[in-house]
């Protein structure tokens, strides 16, 4: 069973979202997602300052097995990206919820964050997908 921290929000497409004190949101992919992908070898992060709609593809993650899009969990502007992923994409495998963060966003619609899944809802979603 994969690790699903209770304090985070999640999307159906397996991103996690953490709300920071300054109002920005940090985004990564869940432990379940990294397990499915296997060893990661490249991460193509978005440009700082670019804007995305909720659900728009904004990053690409490639593992030995497959390429996978990362979707913006909410509408907003990218404020920072994890530059370390260029050299060490495997930190997403080893530490998906901390060092494996992908980018931060400044959301433009507060309500979109509130609509994201809780850990319990995401857990049920993962279970449903597996069966």
């Amino acid at each position, binding site marked *: 069973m994969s690790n699903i921290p209770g304090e985070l929000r999640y999307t159906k497409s397996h991103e996690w979202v953490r709300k920071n004190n300054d109002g920005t949101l940090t985004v990564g992919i869940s432990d379940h997602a990294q397990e499915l992908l*296997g060893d990661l070898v*490249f991460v193509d992060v978005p440009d700082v300052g670019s804007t995305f709609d909720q659900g728009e593809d904004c990053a690409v993650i490639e593992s*030995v097995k497959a390429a996978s899009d990362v979707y913006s969990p909410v509408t907003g502007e990218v404020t920072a990206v994890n530059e370390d992923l260029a050299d060490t994409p495997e930190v997403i495998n080893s530490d998906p919820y901390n060092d494996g963060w992908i980018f931060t966003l400044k959301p433009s619609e507060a309500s979109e964050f509130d609509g994201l899944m809780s850990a319990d809802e995401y857990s049920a979603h993962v279970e449903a997908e597996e069966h």
Partner: protein
Amino acid sequence: MGQRTPLYDVHVNLKAKMVDFGGWDMPINYGSQIEEHHQVRKDAGMFDVSHMVVVDLTGDKVREFLRYLLANNVDRLKDQGKALYSCMLNEKGGVIDDLITYYMTETWFRMVVNAATREKDLAWINKQAESYGVDVKVRDDLAMIAVQGPTARDKVHAVLGSKSQALEDIGVFFMREIGDMAVARTGYTGEDGYEIMLPVADVVTFWEQLLQAGVKPCGLGARDTLRLEAGMNLYGTDMDEETSPLESGLGWTIAWEPAGRDFIGRKPLEQQREQGSSNKLVGLLLDGKGVLRNHQKVVVDGLEAGEITSGSFSPTLGKAIAFARVPKSTGESCKVDMRGKLMDVKVVKPPFVRQGKACI
């Protein structure tokens, strides 16, 4: 539920991720495919390849039979135990399977064929064998482990103890029998090592002994990136019944001489050789970011002209590599359509890596 090798429970206990592979439940990795890959390049890893099919062919006319059955010439097998890689072709010159044949005695040759092609291979071999009076016996009583890497032989020798003396001077691409075990210095990784056939009843103990000796278990994921780096084709992906060896980078496995040897598929192959086959299989190397994938389209001179047959990430090079079937005229570079973007790639001659070192 798929078929299981005698090592199935061992894999599950080692926390392998099991996947369906041609009807078999096989380990794809035991944690990290990339670590397993490096383990084989730098030290020693082992693969359960018990799903592969060992076939013993016996009879007075077995050599004559194989001379006709295979595109490579078994008359190249002059020393006992010597192995030969060959394609087995259909009447159109397409590849039914690729396989290894071992010369055991003048009335006994052993063949190892792919698991996914088991039924059609056996049907074909049996059909052709009839008129030669050759007996075809499938050795499902044998399991097989491949131990590969620069320290693989030393570690196997340590496990075998005094019995390993028989292996000290074994040549590359030779097999030796040690009791009811057959040890071949062959493999599918580009590293030194052995492929070991042994009774099903003994394989779990032998695997545990290899583990104790420091040989790490490796899954089919690492096996695939290792063989791709080593420039070795995968049947069903890089060639099949619709493609000839000449279009599959396997021209070197066809024995044209002596011209009088008739083998199945010879005529259409000769025709193709005279007219020049329209396609060739080449290696591709991507310097930028991203991973080349099977079935991505290859663009030459602005035209969609070919396709990647096997693409992946090379852990040794840290770059994406691939085999692609492209027009014969393709030069030193081309483009690949990667998720809608045309990326420049170099055309190279495989292998990409041999014995731990980059060769491109």
